[in-house]
């Protein structure tokens, strides 16, 4: 009996998934750091509504996000018009389109740990640094960022893992193109639908192991006091 190992298509899907998750994580950290900082410190009356919008992807089904992104990015949608007028390609069925979808989908998983870390920090370390003559930028990079490190680790790991586990958004936005938009979760779905259960098991089992390792990692990387 031949052990049904992973096919080249399966490997392509794995590589693609890791690329997508990696790029999404980097973008999310860059985007969410100022956003979370603002949410943690602002007294604006927009804090509530903005925070709620950021958390929407937590409660909306991926099909809703995928469907609206497909419509918004399409030729009749505002994002579609924008990309067109900028001379860019339309986003659905492309890798950049998936990145945009993943950033939206995983946004709360980056914003919320960062916001909590910044809030826990309080004003005091920053005020102390200010009296010692540190400039605002200096205070942010040499005081706030190092102190909020556990928040960054949590945000990065959760964003990465959540993007790897993404399915509905990619399915609706991707068009299932090998090497471009066919990620592992879609590949598993195809295997199951085609009744190729052995191949589905290899990939699905791998996902379970991956998810477990990631959550353990999250546990071990937390500072001892938090654990």
């Amino acid at each position, binding site marked *: 009996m031949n052990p049904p190992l992973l096919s080249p298509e399966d490997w392509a899907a794995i590589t693609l998934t890791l690329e997508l998750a990696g790029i999404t994580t980097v973008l999310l950290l860059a985007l969410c750091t100022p956003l979370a900082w603002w949410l943690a410190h602002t007294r604006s009356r927009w804090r509530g509504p903005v925070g709620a919008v950021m958390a929407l992807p937590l409660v909306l089904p991926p099909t809703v996000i995928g469907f609206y992104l497909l419509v918004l*990015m399409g030729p*009749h949608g505002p994002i579609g018009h924008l990309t067109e007028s900028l001379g860019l390609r339309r986003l659905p*069925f492309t890798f950049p389109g998936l990145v945009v979808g993943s950033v939206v989908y995983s946004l709360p998983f980056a914003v919320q740990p960062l916001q909590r870390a910044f809030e826990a920090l309080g004003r005091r370390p920053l005020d102390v640094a200010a009296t010692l003559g540190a400039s605002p930028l200096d205070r942010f990079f040499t005081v706030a960022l190092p102190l909020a490190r556990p928040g960054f680790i949590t945000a990065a790991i959760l964003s990465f893992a959540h993007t790897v586990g993404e399915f509905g958004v990619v399915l609706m936005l991707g068009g*299932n193109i090998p090497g471009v938009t066919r990620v592992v979760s879609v590949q598993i779905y195809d295997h199951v*639908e085609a*009744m190729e259960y052995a191949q589905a098991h290899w990939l699905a089992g791998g996902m379970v192991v991956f998810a477990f390792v990631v959550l353990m990692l999250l546990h071990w990387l937390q500072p001892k006091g938090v654990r």
Partner: protein
Amino acid sequence: MRGLSSGKAILVAALFAASAAQGAGVSVAVAANFTAPMQKIAAVFEQDTGHKATLSFGATGKLYAQIANGAPFGILLAAEDSTPEKIAKEGLGDGATRFTYAIGQLVLWSKQAGYVDADGKVLNKSDWKHIAIANPKLAPYGLAAMQTLDKLGLTAQVQPRVVQGENIAQTYQFVASGNAPLGFVALSQVMEDGRLREGSAWMVPASMHEAIRQDAIVLKAAQDNAAAAALMQYLRGDKARAIIRSYGYAF
């Protein structure tokens, strides 16, 4: 105590009798492309016979997986003939009840009027970026579309521009949202009351691909279900066939 429980039993029996008189129910697993006609058929079926058909929609492959794992469906209306055959062979359904309730019509469709010509020559052009096709591994309409491209000798030329829907419903969505300018879908999805609802289409001739025979089968759970037998009969009747035909299917 005893008196009470026998009283309950009588009550339950009476309720059963009442529901039998009103007609029993059957749950039907329906292939995605047959969604719209089946909703209409179920409505007139209930009016005419008093039996209620509860409908679940999905890709045939997924419906099969659910049936094989004990889903309580009474009838499967598949999008092809191989799954009902498999079900009969595996003893999950009654092979004697299997019949072709409709033959699907493949169509190359665009939401834009005048985009697709009546001979499908638009396939030779290079000014479109994406063409939506259902996953040929999973969906019979996708397979028929690939066979058509093969026959036209366009597979190599078109393949890099293919975006795949997981089933024919998602494929339609890609085209309907305008993200793919054209795509191979089921005529039933773009036709209503005997005419194209919108856009432009090429009716792919039956000679371009193997026939999309859509078969129905009664499943084990409904072997003795009167409503299931009645629905199978009803699908062959004039009223149902008129509805099925109005969505562009043949027999």
